[in-house]
């Protein structure tokens, strides 16, 4: 374990018995949220940071669950003592969103009204619904106002939604590699992922848990196509190029992977499909597709941001084509037009959209510099 790790962490679960009505009109009578915290909440609860996760993320953002856990939490590069989100100064809260499959109420949990798992019947959440659930968690933890709400990708959308939905409940909003809404191309990729899952016979219209099947192949395919969009052309070229598998079969009609990139994608797909729930994947991509920051404000992002009361940091990565720097600049331009305090940096990085999870020196330096201000 590294010296600057938050160390061994244990998730907590909070149960909420007040019903939550989603934007779609459907209602969760009660629910549970699983989350982790790192660092100590100060006396006036002014040092709390909320971390919002992306499409396939969860509550385990930093540290290790046990001594023999192979990899730390998904954002360990940025959270820990002496790291940009410094747990010696901040109290960090990271949760699994509703509809997730890592311990918060979602498609794999039992519907108390039917006694069966929710499966495909879990109500479709939108980003705003997640934010509402997060606000209730904040209440439960005694946090009236976050020092900052921070997120990358779909997490960045939640951070922006916070600044509009609860303008007085955050001082800073950190939006990394995100967009105000998806492009047709983004939605297209998500649709391929959903079709891959739904056309797998094991999907059984979403009732695979009830039927004892699994859409393993479909979910793996969905992850493979997603993974391509998270990497840049250059990153793939430098990591895999056209290298062949050491043991590639001579027979080109064989199903076995020939190139290393094939093997890598298959491995990623298999790994993912063994730990992730297909209904959750469908539901998360739907929430992503439907997010439109300005929709409730006549389609005008400037009007939307005029509601906000916080300071913003917007970050993008040069080779990210899933949420390109141009999408981040749209956010910045809308904030400038709304005359809101905003900082922006475009980080030179080869790794594509995935860069937001990686320890890229300039990225860490900029985030650390901004977080100093959050602490001030």
């Amino acid at each position, binding site marked *: 374990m590294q010296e600057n790790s938050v160390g061994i962490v244990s998730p907590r679960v909070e149960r909420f018995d007040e019903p939550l009505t989603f934007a779609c009109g459907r209602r969760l009578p009660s629910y549970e949220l699983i989350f982790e915290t790192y660092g100590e909440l100060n006396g006036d609860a002014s040092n709390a940071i909320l971390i919002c996760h992306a499409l396939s993320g969860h509550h385990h953002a930093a540290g290790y669950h046990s001594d023999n856990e192979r990899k730390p939490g998904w954002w360990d590069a940025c959270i820990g003592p002496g790291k940009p989100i410094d747990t010696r100064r901040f109290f960090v809260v990271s949760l699994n969103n509703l509809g997730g499959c890592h311990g918060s109420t979602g498609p794999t949990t039992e519907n108390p009204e039917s006694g069966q798992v929710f499966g495909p019947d879990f109500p479709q959440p939108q980003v705003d619904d997640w934010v509402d659930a997060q606000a209730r968690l904040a209440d439960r933890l005694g946090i009236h106002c976050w020092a900052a709400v921070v997120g990358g990708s779909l997490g960045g959308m939640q951070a922006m939604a916070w600044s509009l939905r609860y303008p007085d409940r955050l001082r800073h909003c950190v939006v990394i590699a995100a967009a105000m809404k998806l492009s047709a191309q983004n939605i297209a990729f998500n649709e391929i992922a959903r079709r891959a899952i739904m056309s797998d016979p094991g999907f059984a219209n979403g009732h695979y848990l009830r039927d004892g099947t699994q859409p393993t192949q479909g979910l793996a395919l969905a992850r493979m196509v997603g993974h391509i969009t998270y990497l840049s052309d250059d990153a793939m070229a430098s990591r895999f190029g056209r290298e062949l598998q050491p043991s590639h079969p001579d027979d080109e009609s064989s199903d076995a992977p020939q190139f290393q990139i094939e093997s890598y994608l298959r491995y990623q797909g298999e790994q993912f499909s063994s730990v992730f729930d297909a209904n959750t994947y469908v539901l998360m991509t739907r929430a992503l597709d439907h997010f439109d920051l300005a929709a409730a404000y006549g389609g005008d992002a400037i009007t939307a941001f005029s509601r906000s009361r916080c300071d913003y940091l917007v970050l993008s990565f040069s080779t990210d084509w899933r949420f390109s720097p141009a999408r981040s*600049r749209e956010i*910045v331009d809308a904030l400038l037009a709304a005359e809101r305090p905003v900082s922006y*940096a475009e980080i030179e990085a080869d790794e594509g959209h995935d860069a937001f999870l990686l320890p890229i020196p*300039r990225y860490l330096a900029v985030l650390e*510099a901004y977080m100093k201000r959050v602490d001030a």
Partner: protein
Amino acid sequence: MRQDLTHILRWIKSGASVLDLGCGNGEFLALIQKERHARVMGIEIDPDAITSAMGRGLNIIEQNLDHGLANFPSQSFDMVVMAHALQAVQYPDQVLEEMLRVGRECVVTFPNFGQWRSRVHLATRGRMPVSKFMPYNWYDTPNIHFCTVRDFETLCRQRGIRILGRDMIGGDEGGTSLARRWPNLFATTAIYHISR
């Protein structure tokens, strides 16, 4: 702190909103914020400078001035400042026009190429001057649009830009008093307070 920056401070009113084009590490913006309780923002392109400036708690936008200021609303700042960057941009006249659109007032500082040392250097050696103030060769300099005090004032006249005030720096104290009397010959740095 560069001398031209302390001169600019005089023209910034308390509580003003200030945009600094090419704000570097934000030292000057931080001073304005502290001394004038101003709402400040900076534009910069150098990665390390951006990090330093953000570390001072300033709002900094990474943006190339050569791509314009179209994303800034008209008249959205009381003061737009550009110190020692005019000579380094692709289209100085367009940047000036944009500054005057975004800011109600502007301050521009630039090195005066008409200063006697440059003239003597060019006249006697027949080569582009390389000095302490301009330490680059002609082929690798970021300063691609040098001008003189007279050039600048001619441009202002042609474009209908009002000169609200000006000041000159001449290196040392004696140099500065000469520069104020004969700017185009003695000013190393020219400072202009302008508006539409």
